[in-house]
C-alpha cells in the first residue's frame, strides 16, 4: 500500500532543507554580497568600522554563497583573446644563435666561416663558408638538442636541424612548438590575472579556452576598450644602447642592430643595438611618480642582477644615450649623466597621470610573453543589466503565479501539493546553482521560467494517471500507488531526452547559452525529484492522516 520508509522520509526532508537553506541567501542578495565583499576586504586589508558593519549584515553561520550574476545582468566587459603563440618561436631561436655559433666555431677548419642570415620567421639560417663540412656541422648542432620538457611528448627533441645547400637550418620541432605554446599560454594567463588583480575588480573570470585562447570577463568595468588597455599591451620593457638618433625609417641597420620608432615624436627613429642591457623581467617594482619638473613619470627598481648590469653599463657609458623601449617604441633616450649604482631609476616621457599609473601597473605585473588579438569583445552597461534583471524577476514571478493558479484550478488539493513541490523545486534549483558557483545569465533566467512551466509536467503525468487508475483500481490508495508506478517510465524517458539536449548545449555552447543549459539541466533533475519524491510524500502524509474513502484528482 501507500508507504514510504522513515529513512526515506528523513532523506527527502533533508534534501528539501538543504535546498531552502542554500537558496535563502539569494533572497537577500545585496546584503549577502556586501557581507562577502567585506569578508574579502578584511582578509586582505584588515578591518575598518565600515567593513565590520557590512560583515554583520549577514550572520556568518548561515551559508553565504550566492549565484554569480553574468555580465548581461550585472554589466561589464567580455573579451576573447587569441595569444600569438608564434611570437615566442623567434625569440627562442634567436636565443639559440650564440650556442650554435659557439658550437660551430671550433669546427671552422672543416665548415668554413659561419654567418647568420637575417630574418626568416620560425627559422634560424646559418650560411657555412664550406658546404662540404655540412655533415659535421649538422651532427654538431644536433647535439645541442634537448628533450622537450612536457609529459605529453616525452622523448622528442626540441629542435630540428637540416641542411639546404650551404645553409644550415634550425627549426623548433612540432613537439617543442606545442610545449612552447602551452607555456606561453600559461604565462599569458598568469600575467593577465595579475594585471586585472592590480586594478582590483570583483570576481573576474579569466579562463583558458582551447589551444591558444583566453576568455576574460570582468564585471563592473566601464568598457571593453578600458579592459583592453589593461591587458592588451604586451609591456615588454627593455633598456638598449643607442647607435644613432633621428635616422631614416628605411635605414639599413648594422648587424645586430634595429630601427625603432619614437613613441611620442612622430617620424623620429632610433637605431639601437638589438641586445638589451636589462629588460623588464629584472624589475622588482614600479610606481607612478613625478620627475623634478613635476611631470608624471614612473619610478622603477631592478633586482640584484639587473642592478649590477645596469650599474656596470652606466659606469662605462657616461655621456652616451641609452633608450628605454616599450613594445618596440622608444619612450625616451636620455643621456647617461653618471654611474647609477643603486639599481633604481625613473622613466620620463610625455605621460599623463593616468598613463604613468597604468604603465607602472603593467611593469609591475610583468610583460606578456606574446601579443594578443581580440576575437570578440562585448560591453554591457550596468543600466541594461539592471533592466534585464528587473524584467527577468517580474516575468519569473508572474509565470510562477500563473502556473500555480492554473495547477490549483485543474487539480484542486493535488494541485496544491504540486504547487508546494514547485516552490521547493525552485528553491532546490537555486540552492544547487549557488553551491556549484554557477553564473546566472539572462537566458539562464529563461531556463528557470521554462523549468517552472515544465516542472509540473511530471506531476501532471502522475495525476492524469491516477485519474485513469481511479476508474479501474480498487480504492484510492491503490490508484495513487499505481499512478506513480505507471507514470514513472514516461517521466524517465521524457526527461532523459531533455537532459541529453541540455548536456549537449552545455558542452558545445559558450557564455550565456551555457548558463541556460545549466539551469535547464538542473531544473529537470530537481523537478523529477520533487515530483516523484516530494509530492508523493505530501500525498502519502495527507492520505495517512485523512484516510479518505474516495478521492478526486
Amino acid at each position, binding site marked *: 500500500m501507500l508507504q514510504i520508509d522513515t529513512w526515506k522520509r528523513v532523506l527527502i526532508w533533508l534534501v528539501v532543507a538543504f535546498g531552502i537553506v542554500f537558496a535563502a541567501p539569494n533572497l537577500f542578495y545585496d546584503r549577502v554580497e556586501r557581507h562577502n565583499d567585506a569578508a574579502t576586504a578584511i582578509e586582505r586589508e584588515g578591518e575598518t568600522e565600515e567593513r565590520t558593519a557590512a560583515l554583520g549584515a549577514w550572520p556568518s553561520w548561515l551559508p553565504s554563497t550566492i549565484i554569480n550574476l553574468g555580465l548581461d545582468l550585472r554589466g561589464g566587459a567580455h573579451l576573447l583573446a*587569441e595569444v600569438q603563440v608564434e611570437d615566442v618561436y623567434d625569440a627562442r631561436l634567436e636565443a639559440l644563435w650564440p650556442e650554435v655559433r659557439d658550437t660551430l666555431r671550433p669546427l671552422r677548419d672543416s665548415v668554413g666561416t659561419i654567418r647568420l642570415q637575417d630574418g626568416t620567421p620560425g627559422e634560424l639560417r646559418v650560411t657555412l663558408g664550406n658546404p662540404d663540412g655540412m655533415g659535421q656541422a649538422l651532427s654538431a648542432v644536433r647535439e645541442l638538442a634537448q628533450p622537450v620538457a612536457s609529459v605529453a611528448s616525452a622523448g622528442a627533441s626540441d629542435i630540428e636541424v637540416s641542411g639546404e645547400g650551404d645553409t644550415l637550418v634550425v627549426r623548433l620541432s612540432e613537439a617543442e612548438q606545442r610545449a612552447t605554446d602551452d607555456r606561453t599560454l600559461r604565462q599569458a594567463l598568469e600575467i593577465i590575472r595579475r594585471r586585472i588583480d592590480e586594478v582590483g575588480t570583483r570576481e573576474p573570470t579569466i579562463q583558458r579556452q582551447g589551444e591558444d585562447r583566453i576568455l576574460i570577463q570582468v564585471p563592473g568595468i566601464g*568598457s*571593453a*576598450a578600458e579592459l*583592453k588597455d589593461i591587458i592588451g599591451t604586451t609591456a615588454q620593457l627593455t633598456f638598449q644602447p643607442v647607435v644613432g638618433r633621428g635616422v631614416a625609417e628605411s635605414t639599413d641597420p648594422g648587424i645586430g642592430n634595429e630601427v625603432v620608432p619614437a613613441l611620442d615624436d612622430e617620424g623620429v627613429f632610433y637605431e639601437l643595438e638589438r641586445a638589451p642591457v636589462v629588460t623588464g623581467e629584472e624589475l622588482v617594482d614600479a610606481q607612478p611618480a613625478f620627475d623634478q619638473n613635476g611631470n608624471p613619470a614612473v619610478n622603477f627598481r631592478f633586482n640584484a642582477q639587473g642592478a649590477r648590469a645596469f650599474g656596470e653599463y652606466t659606469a662605462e657609458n657616461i655621456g652616451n644615450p641609452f633608450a628605454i623601449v616599450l613594445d618596440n617604441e622608444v619612450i625616451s633616450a636620455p643621456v647617461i649623466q653618471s654611474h647609477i649604482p643603486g639599481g633604481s631609476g625613473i622613466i620620463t616621457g610625455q605621460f599623463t597621470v593616468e598613463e604613468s599609473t597604468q604603465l607602472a601597473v603593467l611593469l609591475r605585473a610583468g610583460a606578456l610573453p606574446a601579443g594578443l588579438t581580440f*576575437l*570578440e*569583445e*562585448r*560591453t*554591457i*552597461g550596468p*543600466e541594461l543589466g539592471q*533592466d*534585464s534583471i528587473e*524584467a*527577468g524577476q517580474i*516575468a519569473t514571478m*508572474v*509565470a510562477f503565479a*500563473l*502556473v500555480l493558479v*492554473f*495547477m490549483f*484550478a*485543474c487539480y*484542486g488539493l493535488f494541485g496544491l501539493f504540486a504547487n508546494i513541490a514547485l516552490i521547493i523545486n525552485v528553491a532546490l534549483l537555486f540552492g544547487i546553482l549557488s553551491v556549484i558557483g554557477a553564473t546566472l545569465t*539572462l*537566458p539562464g*533566467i*529563461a531556463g528557470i521560467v*521554462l523549468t517552472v*512551466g*515544465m516542472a*509540473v*509536467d511530471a506531476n501532471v503525468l502522475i495525476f*492524469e494517471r491516477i*485519474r*485513469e487508475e481511479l476508474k479501474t483500481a480498487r480504492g484510492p490508495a491503490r490508484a495513487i500507488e499505481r499512478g506513480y508506478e*505507471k507514470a514513472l*517510465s*514516461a517521466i524517465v*524517458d*521524457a526527461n*532523459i*531526452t*531533455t537532459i*541529453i*539536449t541540455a548536456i*549537449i*548545449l552545455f558542452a*558545445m*555552447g*559558450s557564455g*550565456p*547559452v551555457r548558463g*541556460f*543549459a545549466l539551469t*535547464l539541466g538542473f531544473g529537470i533533475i530537481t523537478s523529477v525529484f520533487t515530483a516523484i519524491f516530494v509530492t508523493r510524500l505530501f500525498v502519502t502524509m495527507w492520505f495517512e492522516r485523512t484516510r479518505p474513502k474516495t478521492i*478526486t484528482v
Partner: protein
Amino acid sequence: MRLKLVPEETSVDFFSRSKLWLGISGLMMVIAFVSFALQGLNFGIDFRGGTTIRTESAEPVDVAAYRAAMQELELGDIVISEVFDPSFGPDENVAMVRIAPQGDAESVTPETIQAVESALQSVAPDINFTSVESVGPKVSGELIQTAIIAVLLAIGAVLIYIWLRFEWQFALGAVAALVHDVLLTIGIFSELRIQFDLAIIAALLTIVGYSLNDTVVVFDRVRENLVKYKKRPLKEVLNISINETLSRTLMTSVTTLLALIALFILGGDVIRGFVFAMIWGVLVGTYSSIFVATALLHRLGVKRDWEKPTDGGAGTQFANVDA
C-alpha cells in the same frame, strides 16, 4: 469544480485526416525550407561577425539622422533599428546599430567605436551606449559550425536513445517530428526576418528537448497499449493512446506556454526573440507529437508482440528497463 482542458473521455479520431495533416506539415516544411534557401536567416553578429551598439536617449530615435551621421564614416553596411518594449519609459528611446565587420580585422578597433559614438552624439547629445558587442569573423565562423554540430548531435543522440528504449520505427517517428519542428522554427525566423543569434540555437535545442518530451510520452503509452490491446489494429491502438494522453499533452503545453508568455511580455526586449522561438516551438512541438510522429509510426508499422523482447526488433531489450 475542476478546470478541465479536455473532457474526461475523448475519442477523437486523429487518423481520419492523417493524410491531410501530413500533407500540411510537408507543405509547411517545404515553405520553410524554400524561405530559408531563398533569403537565408537574419544572422546576428554572433554568426556573421561585426558590431552592434545599443543606444538609449531621452529624445526619440531618428533613424534617418543616425544613418546620415554615420554615413561619413564609411563603415559599409549599417543596420539601424528602433527597439520597442512596454517596460520602456517615455524618456527611454532605444535603438540597435549594427555595423558590418571591418575588413579583415578580428574585432572592431576602439577608434571605430569612438568615431561611431561621437557621430551619434552629434545627433543626440544625451545618447547613452548601453552595450557594445563585437565579434570577429574567425569566432563567428566557428560559432556557426558549433551550432550546427550541436543541433545534429542532439538529434542523433535522441535518435539512439529512443531506438534503445523503443524500436527503430519509434525513433524515426520522433526524429521526423523533431526535424519538422526545427525546420518550421528556422522557417519562421527566416520568413519574419527575426534576428537569429546564438541564443536562438539554445532555443532550437530546447525545442528539440520539448518536442521529444511530448512525443515520448505518447509513445510510452503506445508501447503500453500495444501489449494491452493485442488484437486491435495499430491505428486504433495509436488513436487510443493519443486520446488517453491528450489531457496531459495539453496541460503541459498550457503551463509551459503560460510561463513563456509571461516571459515574452515582461522579460524585456533582449530575450524576446529567444522566447518567441520557444513559444513557437512548444506550439509546433505539441502539434507534431500528436499528428506527425504517430502518423509516421502508423505508416511505418510496428512490431506487435511485445511479450517476447528478443523477437526481431533490435535494441528492444532495454524497453523494459524502468530506471
